[in-house]
């Protein structure tokens, strides 16, 4: 569904992504893990069109992605839930959610309504604060809002940048289950960038390990979970939890 070939991205002079090859199949969850500054957020940003690659090829559903054109990429059904939540802080929770469906509100208004209710069921916490400005929510509530808003877009490819950040353990668990459901029910493909590596690998089908801008390990998530090198480097030596 999505294929990246030899993608190079720079921030100014800084060579951040050094020839990334990546594939995401329909209805698959792909986890991307790696240290701080490895370039995970940059990778997602590049697919979403926030950064333009200097070199390389990105193909989505057999068509090349328009580099660096965020709106057009969103139009194709790719949605990024970015780092730091990026919610509309003076708009109400409700408006935030509805804007998530901006791309399709004209086409399928009824559907959007249904999704809206479904999403609220998933995050009952939000239900109680629909009229509050998004910026006044607690950190975790904002994170839920950001994820929920991403779901409202009903994308073909959903990219989540550290969605578990700031969420209570119980909620993280629920969210991961939700992602699996999403793939099963709607065939949404998901790229999941996580620091909560264990949870991510447990949820994902496939996984990539990014190190200083290059992919160093790639394989089935379960294999990686068992891989000693990965365990040592990313799961904490003891591999607890």
């Amino acid at each position, binding site marked *: 569904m999505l294929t990246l070939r030899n993608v190079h991205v720079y921030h100014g002079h800084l060579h951040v992504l050094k020839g990334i090859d990546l594939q995401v199949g329909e209805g698959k969850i792909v986890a991307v893990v790696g240290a701080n500054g490895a370039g995970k957020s940059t990778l997602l940003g590049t697919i979403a069109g926030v950064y333009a690659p200097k070199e390389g090829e990105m193909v989505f559903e057999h068509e090349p992605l328009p580099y660096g054109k965020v709106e057009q990429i969103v139009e194709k059904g790719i949605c990024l839930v970015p780092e730091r939540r990026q*919610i*509309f802080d*003076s708009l109400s929770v409700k408006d935030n959610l509805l804007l998530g469906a901006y791309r399709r*509100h004209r086409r399928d208004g009824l559907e959007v309504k249904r999704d809206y209710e479904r999403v609220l069921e998933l995050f009952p916490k939000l239900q109680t604060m629909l009229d509050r*400005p998004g910026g006044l929510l607690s950190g975790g509530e904002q994170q839920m809002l950001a994820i929920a808003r991403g779901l409202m877009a009903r994308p073909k490819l959903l990219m989540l940048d550290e969605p578990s950040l700031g969420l209570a353990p119980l909620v993280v668990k629920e969210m991961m289950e939700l992602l699996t459901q999403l793939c099963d029910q709607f065939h949404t493909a998901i790229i999941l960038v996580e620091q909560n590596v264990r949870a991510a690998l447990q949820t994902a089908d496939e996984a990539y390990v990014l190190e200083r801008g290059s992919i160093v390990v790639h394989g089935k998530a379960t294999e990686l979970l068992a891989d000693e090198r990965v365990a040592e480097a990313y799961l904490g030596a003891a591999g607890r939890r």
Partner: protein
Amino acid sequence: MEAWSQFVQLLFSGLTVGSIYALVALGFVITYSVTGILNLAQGDFAMLGALFCITFVNSGVPFVLAIGLSIMAVMAIGGLFERLAIQPARRSSVAVLIIITIGVSFVFRGIALLVWGTDPYALRPFTGNEALRMFGAVIQWQSVWAIAISVVSFIALHLFFNRTYLGKAVSACVINPFAARLMGIDIRKMSLGAIAVSAGLGALAGIIIAPISGASYDMGMMIGLKAFIAAVVGGLTNAPAAIAGAFLVGMLESFAEGYLSSGYKEAISFGLLLLVLFFMPNGLFAKMTGKRV
């Protein structure tokens, strides 16, 4: 009785002036709420609108058509301005963007000076020259027009921003442009649209004032400044509040002028505005901002 009629007169004066400020202030607010830019060339759109309209009328174009044409012309200029000056500088700081709009305002004023010279021009009132008498006070038809149009714009914009989906999307652009793009909102298109519409509103304001106060190449600055105050007092991102702010400023000026001395009028109205600001640091009608740590 005389005191009463003076009061009513002042009220009408305030409403008239206020409605003019309101239309320009609306332009400010629309531009600001979509692009986050305080466009100090906004007053010059009023100037351009008025002068275009006068030129069209003088060259024999029917009145209504002239109004439409000049609004369109100014919208086109606004669009060009957005594409050539604002869009390339999107990432700059607030101060830089403000100065860019000041620079553009210089250009507009200079060009107007070249084209129309320094003389003020007159435009005929929309309807009739007679004045209305009410409660012992006088009000011109043109003022009624001004008030009516700004009230209509008030309602329209209130509905647009608070009731329509597009209105939300438009506000999203300035609250968080990055997120807006990720939602698929084309912020460049929105910004173009917003500035064009603001320019159109400015032009309309200019056309409405021209019969009242005449029009000349340098009329934009003061109107712009007053409307700026109105917008800020109202709360900048809130169109209805800006209009309320505009009427407040108009009223304040009118009553200060009527009951106190005129020499200090400017200082009095600014002073009062400052007082207002000190007690309501986010404008009189600020909504909840949604900022916390």
